[in-house]
């Protein structure tokens, strides 16, 4: 017996997982470009969030049609992947359906995989219809012009091909089992592929084995290719939804962080005993603090994780009051831009021995314009909508901070408002002394 198959399989597996590991390393490096932020508090609540929101899909079903279709594909993929273990063992050791010893339980497993595969096919066709025929607004939005639109369709095509290969693999296997072919021990229940098996009935065992092997190899190769496609696509969410929901902000949505660097300066300013001419503190050799964010390195790592997690579903944008009323702001685009810029910075580092060489570009202006940032009402609709707890709002706020505190580039009317707050303690030009006048007015 030749071991070429097994060796080839081992090589294929090594290549598939090896390349994937390389990209995961890159992914982690890029996320670590972000500033530190502590999200290690309340592990209990964090695990619960992950269980409810990522594992339990609780926010997906807020839109029931998409939610239920998504759960079918999600459950299908997770459960059918159990079969992957058997496929890998069979591939490495040349066995046939190595788990068949489980008997009746094995039949239940294979049978349910098949039914799920069929349901996934149906759901994916529905998804394609929603994107390309019904053309839901959020899927034909400007954000998705070009690659993102193709990416979304490629993922769906891929899933169709993988599910069909799985079912045809089972169908040809069943046909071989029925022909009492050696090596193909009778095992499994085939509620769906029993309708495929008759296609192979007229074939000789030899030909049939070629077909069965072809489906088998294409299926596992397809899975490995798909896994490696993740890094280049919006589909990373299938992995990152879990850490993303775990590390998401637990505070009430209205609570925006107070910049500590600012607190220090404000305290110093308000301290009557502070010596304005004192020598800077010894730790002043650290780089001067930059207020707010103009590029991905100024954002925190959770915001960057958010960007990789975003699967561009556009629920945020469809709920954004600015976007609904025709403004340029689209929270989804904020996330896509952040990821695109992060990838650009990452490629720059790859090309320069791991060191980022300034490229005269920034996330601000080259990707996200001030016009988009100033259209935000900070209403949190985008944060509420996101099925995996991404916060586009926190990025918008950090970039506004940069515009205002580093560049003094707020819209004129906002500068007037801020001058009023500073001088009169109110956003309008009224004297603080008059704050109680209403009491005596009629």
């Amino acid at each position, binding site marked *: 017996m030749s071991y070429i198959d097994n060796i080839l399989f081992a090589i294929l597996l090594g290549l598939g997982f090896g390349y994937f590991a390389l990209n995961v390393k890159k992914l982690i490096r890029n996320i670590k470009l972000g500033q530190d932020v502590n999200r290690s508090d309340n592990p209990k609540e964090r695990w619960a969030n992950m269980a409810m929101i990522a594992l339990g899909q609780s926010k997906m079903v807020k839109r029931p049609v998409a939610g239920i279709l998504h759960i079918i594909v999600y459950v299908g993929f997770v459960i059918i992947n159990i079969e992957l273990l058997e496929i890998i063992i069979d591939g490495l050791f040349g066995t046939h359906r190595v788990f068949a010893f489980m008997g009746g339980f094995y039949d239940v497993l294979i049978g349910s995989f098949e039914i799920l595969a069929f349901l996934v096919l149906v759901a994916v066709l529905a998804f394609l219809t929603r994107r390309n025929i019904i053309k839901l607004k959020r899927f034909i939005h400007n954000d998705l012009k070009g690659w993102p639109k193709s990416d979304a369709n490629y993922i769906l095509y891929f899933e169709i091909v993988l599910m069909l290969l799985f079912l045809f693999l089972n169908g040809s296997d069943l046909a071989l089992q029925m022909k009492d072919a050696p090596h193909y021990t009778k095992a499994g229940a085939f509620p769906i592929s029993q309708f495929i098996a008759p296609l192979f009935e007229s074939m000789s065992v030899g030909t049939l084995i070629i077909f069965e092997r072809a489906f088998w190899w294409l299926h596992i190769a397809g899975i490995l290719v798909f896994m490696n496609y993740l890094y280049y696509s919006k589909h990373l969410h299938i992995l990152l939804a879990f850490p993303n929901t775990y590390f998401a902000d637990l*505070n*009430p*949505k*209205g*609570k*925006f962080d*107070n*910049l500590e660097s*600012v607190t220090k300066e*404000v*305290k110093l*300013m*308000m301290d009557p005993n502070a010596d304005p001419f004192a020598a800077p503190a010894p730790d002043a050799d650290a780089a001067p603090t930059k207020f707010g964010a103009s590029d991905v390195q100024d954002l925190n790592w959770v915001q960057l994780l958010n960007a990789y997690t975003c699967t561009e579903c556009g629920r945020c944008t469809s*709920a954004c*009051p*600015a976007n*609904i*009323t*025709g*403004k*340029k702001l689209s929270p989804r685009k904020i996330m896509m831009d952040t990821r695109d810029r992060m990838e650009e910075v990452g490629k720059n580092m790859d090309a320069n021995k791991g060191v980022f060489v300034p490229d005269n570009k920034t996330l601000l202006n080259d990707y996200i314009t001030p*016009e988009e940032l*100033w*259209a*935000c*009402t*900070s*209403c*949190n*609709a985008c*944060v*509420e909508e996101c099925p995996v707890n991404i916060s586009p709002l926190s990025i918008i*706020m950090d970039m*506004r*901070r940069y*515009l*205002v*505190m580093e560049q003094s580039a*707020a*819209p004129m*009317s*906002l500068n007037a*408002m*801020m001058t009023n*707050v*500073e001088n009169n*303690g*109110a*956003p*309008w030009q*009224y004297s*603080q*002394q*008059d*704050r*109680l*006048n*209403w*009491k005596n*007015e009629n």
Partner: protein
Amino acid sequence: MSEVLSVPTMAEMLAEGKQPEVLFWVGCAGSFDDRAKKITKAFVKILNRAGVSFAVLGAEESCTGDPAKRAGNEFLFQMQAMMNIEVLNAYEAKKIVTACPHCFNTLKNEYPELGGNYEVVHHTQFLKSLLDEGRLTIEGGQFKGKRITFHDPCYLGRANKIYEAPRDLIEKLDVELVEMKRSKANGLCCGAGGAQMFKDAEPGNKEVNVERTEDALETAPDIIAAGCPFCNTMLTDGVKNKEKEAQVKVMDIAELIANAKDL
């Protein structure tokens, strides 16, 4: 309506050696905006009627810094916050009530880290607690049977998950509470948040307040209830834009209750 309002200040209270049950944070809109001042007065009338011991800061109150923070000016926000915290702590304030969800959110969520720890409630929560404690009774009065829809302020609803207190109060008025298609966690912003109140909107094809007013008008209401002075302004403008001001009124929940009681 000619009743004299009793509005003691914290300074006056302190001079008498008294500490009020609650500090009423009026806010900039409540102090200066003509429309919002009516809400302030309505709320004070209810407090007076319920015999609540409260006080305001008066000329010692200053902007919480919310619009500065949302505009990106963290410096100005923290300066405002620290000045206000100094004043509030000097008076040993424990509980604060405010009719502005923006003040509410900032005081409640963003002041603690800067040294300001208070129990902060929105006026709808406070009125609800008065009701629950039997210190306030509400009857339908002139609103009986009217259709009222409630617009969730973002900084009360999504930001702090307070959806029920305002609705509970409205329902006490023997009215028909009707929900907009986008409500509670899915409520649409009025367009004023994030310092938008103080600037022109970016180019687009519609104003946010008009979009939201259309949501409200779809419910064919007699009254659009609000719980935020800024939402109130935006929706009032929206109703005018739709030329419905003769049929539909925009009112704060405090006003609904005060009017129902003929205060």
